[in-house]
């Protein structure tokens, strides 16, 4: 039986999404980009093949030679093959999606323990520490480049052969060419990698400014901006942050920060105080990666499910594999939007495959233990839980739906916030949903629960319905005389009838509470009013919260 996973109890981190996009600085990132990775992994045995990668009849990747022949990503495959003779078409499905790239990315581990595989063919690591160690960013970049080249030759024996024939394996035009860059944030680093640039800290904004708006990773938003006349990243970055947030939502706001060189997706692992480590002991040592994955599946899903239920997403997970003979493989895996079970299992598989096929480090026995140690968790307050925790629909979905709804209705949807106040109505502030969604505010519940004991605050529960416009009534005694509140806060008689002024309807008062006196607008002595509140129970209209003000009575709320 699998051990029951203890419920994760974490203090909600004082982490604000809004803070992160407004105030954080972009981390220093070293990034390696293999521009033609699909062609390397398809293993055509040529340095410069005339080939494209295609899926669904559309070209997705173009080799340098095919590019020179005029083929572009997005072309129809049929048109491309008829236009260029001898064009090789590689199916997307034929490309090795597994641990091949992980093996290349492994090299970065010699420089920094934390690696993020940004995409197949693109990996990144934190540059700050290692560059100090290697004596400067330039030195670090050239060390990384050398190590990468060695690894390519080692991992792809055909590459080694080709190297003998052509000394220029890594020059421009070869599918093995790659870029190494160091810059602030992954977005800037990825662009800089095309020319292997080192962008000094703090000038990303001016580096990105002249670039066309289409460089944004979200084509839909880029198209819209283009149509609106925003043509460069700099023009986009100059737009007002709040306006962008309103028009394009959270995703747009992130892009806006990126365009300004402030991509804050951080690689640095945060300290986690509570131990969330899960150790999965396999029933017997297993050598085949897929059987390890199969056995781990349920536990991984359970673990991430529990985290999610407690309101957390794991962004970086340390995976430690231990063999029966005590060998270890440790690796941090990061995914910005949070690791789902499927993504994590995929990464465990990559790690297993690259470990077991590494000639120097391969374990001498089957894997016995898989240890998962979350390195960085973020609050997933805005993440919708599905019942089994496996699926999630994010803020993005909610904000898209609300944008559409607001456009249809022509008014703003809002979210209620509770603040300390004396009356049920004043305690609620309706804020536009955008503000709430993008501002991961302090835990409202806690703060409001400790509402200060305002004088005059209701001592009872609040009415389920609070009327926007107060409804005037009369409170009458059995004999029909009007009831008023005396200066020393007493009722002038016993309520027996209640009459709604607008409809003229009269109902019986069955019970009533004591009076709560309160001074309204006390900060304006000349306008201040003495009011008193009372709860009454009627025979046909239920229980009501009623206010007396300047000798008149109003219904404020209904205990529905």
């Amino acid at each position, binding site marked *: 039986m699998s051990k029951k996973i203890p419920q994760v109890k974490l203090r909600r981190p004082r982490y604000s999404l809004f803070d992160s996009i407004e105030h954080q600085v972009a981390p220093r990132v070293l990034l390696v980009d293999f521009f033609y990775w699909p062609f390397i992994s398809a293993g055509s045995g040529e340095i410069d093949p005339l080939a494209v990668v295609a899926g669904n009849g559309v070209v997705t990747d173009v080799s340098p030679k095919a590019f020179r022949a005029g083929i572009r990503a997005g072309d129809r495959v049929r048109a491309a093959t008829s236009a260029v003779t001898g064009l090789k078409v590689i199916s997307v499905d034929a490309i090795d999606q597994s641990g091949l790239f992980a093996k290349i990315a492994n090299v970065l581990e010699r420089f920094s323990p934390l690696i993020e595989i940004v995409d197949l063919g693109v990996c990144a690591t934190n540059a700050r520490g290692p560059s100090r160690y290697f004596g400067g960013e330039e030195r670090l970049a050239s060390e990384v480049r050398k190590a990468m080249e060695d690894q390519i030759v080692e991992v792809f024996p055909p590459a080694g052969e080709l190297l003998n024939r052509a000394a220029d394996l890594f020059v421009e035009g070869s599918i093995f060419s790659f870029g190494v860059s160091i810059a602030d944030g992954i977005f800037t680093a990825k662009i800089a990698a095309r020319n292997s640039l080192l962008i000094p800290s703090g000038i990303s904004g001016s580096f990105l400014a002249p670039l066309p708006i289409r460089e944004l990773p979200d084509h839909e938003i880029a198209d819209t901006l283009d149509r609106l006349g925003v043509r460069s990243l700099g023009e986009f970055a100059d737009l007002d942050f709040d306006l962008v947030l309103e028009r394009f939502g959270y995703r747009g706001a992130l892009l806006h920060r990126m365009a300004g060189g402030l991509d804050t997706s951080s690689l640095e692992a945060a300290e986690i105080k509570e131990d969330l480590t899960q150790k999965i002991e396999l029933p017997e040592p297993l050598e085949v990666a897929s059987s390890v994955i199969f056995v781990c599946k349920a536990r991984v899903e359970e673990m991430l499910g529990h985290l999610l239920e407690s309101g957390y997403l794991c962004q970086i997970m340390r995976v430690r594999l231990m063999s029966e003979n005590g060998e270890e493989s440790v690796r941090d895996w990061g995914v910005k939007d949070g690791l789902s079970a499927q993504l994590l299992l995929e990464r465990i598989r990559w790690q297993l495959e690259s470990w077991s096929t590494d000639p120097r480090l391969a374990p001498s026995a089957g894997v016995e233990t898989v240890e998962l140690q979350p390195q960085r968790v973020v609050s997933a307050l805005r993440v919708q839980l599905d019942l089994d925790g496996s699926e999630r629909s994010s803020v993005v979905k909610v904000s898209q739906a609300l944008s559409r709804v607001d456009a*249809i*209705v022509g008014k703003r949807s809002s*979210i*209620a916030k*509770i603040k300390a106040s004396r009356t049920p109505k004043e305690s609620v502030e309706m804020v536009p949903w955008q503000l709430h969604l993008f501002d991961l505010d302090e835990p409202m519940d806690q703060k*409001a629960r400790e509402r200060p004991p305002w004088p005059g605050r209701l001592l009872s529960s609040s009415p*389920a319905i*609070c009327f926007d416009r107060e409804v005037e009534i009369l409170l009458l005694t059995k004999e029909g005389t009007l009831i008023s509140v005396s200066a020393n806060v007493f009722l002038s008689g016993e309520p027996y009838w209640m009459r709604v002024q607008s409809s003229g309807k009269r109902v019986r008062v069955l019970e009533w509470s*004591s009076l709560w006196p309160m001074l309204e607008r006390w900060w304006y002595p000349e306008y201040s009013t003495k009011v008193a509140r009372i709860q009454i129970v009627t025979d046909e209209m239920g229980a009501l919260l009623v206010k007396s003000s300047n000798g008149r009575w109003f219904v404020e709320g209904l205990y*529905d």
Partner: protein
Amino acid sequence: MDIAAEKSISHLSGFVSPQLLASERYVELGGSLAQIFPLGRIQLGSVVLFEGESNSGATSAVFEFLSSGGIRRNWSALVGFENLGFLAAFEKGVDLGKVVSVPDPGRDLAQVVAVLTEAFRVVTIANPRFISSSQARNLTSRVRVNKSIIAIVQQGCDITGTRGRGLWPGSYDYSISSSISGFTGLDRGSGFIRERRLSLSLGSRRSGATRSIAVSI
């Protein structure tokens, strides 16, 4: 089956995650509603009707629903609610950070609800006035696909003179009727309302049975 085999099967079951069919997906409820819903859970893709005369506690019943178990953890939208006492909802345990209030969409109600069900797990509508039976049918099939829940509140208010004009013209899976049966804490000019007794009864279209419960709120 011998003990060893049974043991190894229960051992293996720890490694296999259960496969749920789409029709078998539910949200667990908590609190009082868990006691009247069959097996304490509600099927995704359902339409729930909250009904009652004026002042019969339908609003409190909605709060019970929104603060209940799995529903509380999901995003929900309130459409066309005016005068809602959010402080009371908060006191009842509704997570206001996940509840979005959409202003009355008037004649665009069906369209708005359709958009909302794509992102929100629960969409609650107050007195749906402008909705035709064919639109209601469309929405019902849409929630089945989206695995969301539509809740409809049909209740008028004597005090403002609004009647529960809006009636859901379509079919529904559950109906919850409520009534308030009494108050404690008041005594002719002293004390305040400490407790209300709310009785809820659930009619399920599927089982045809009715189950009731009385809760103090």
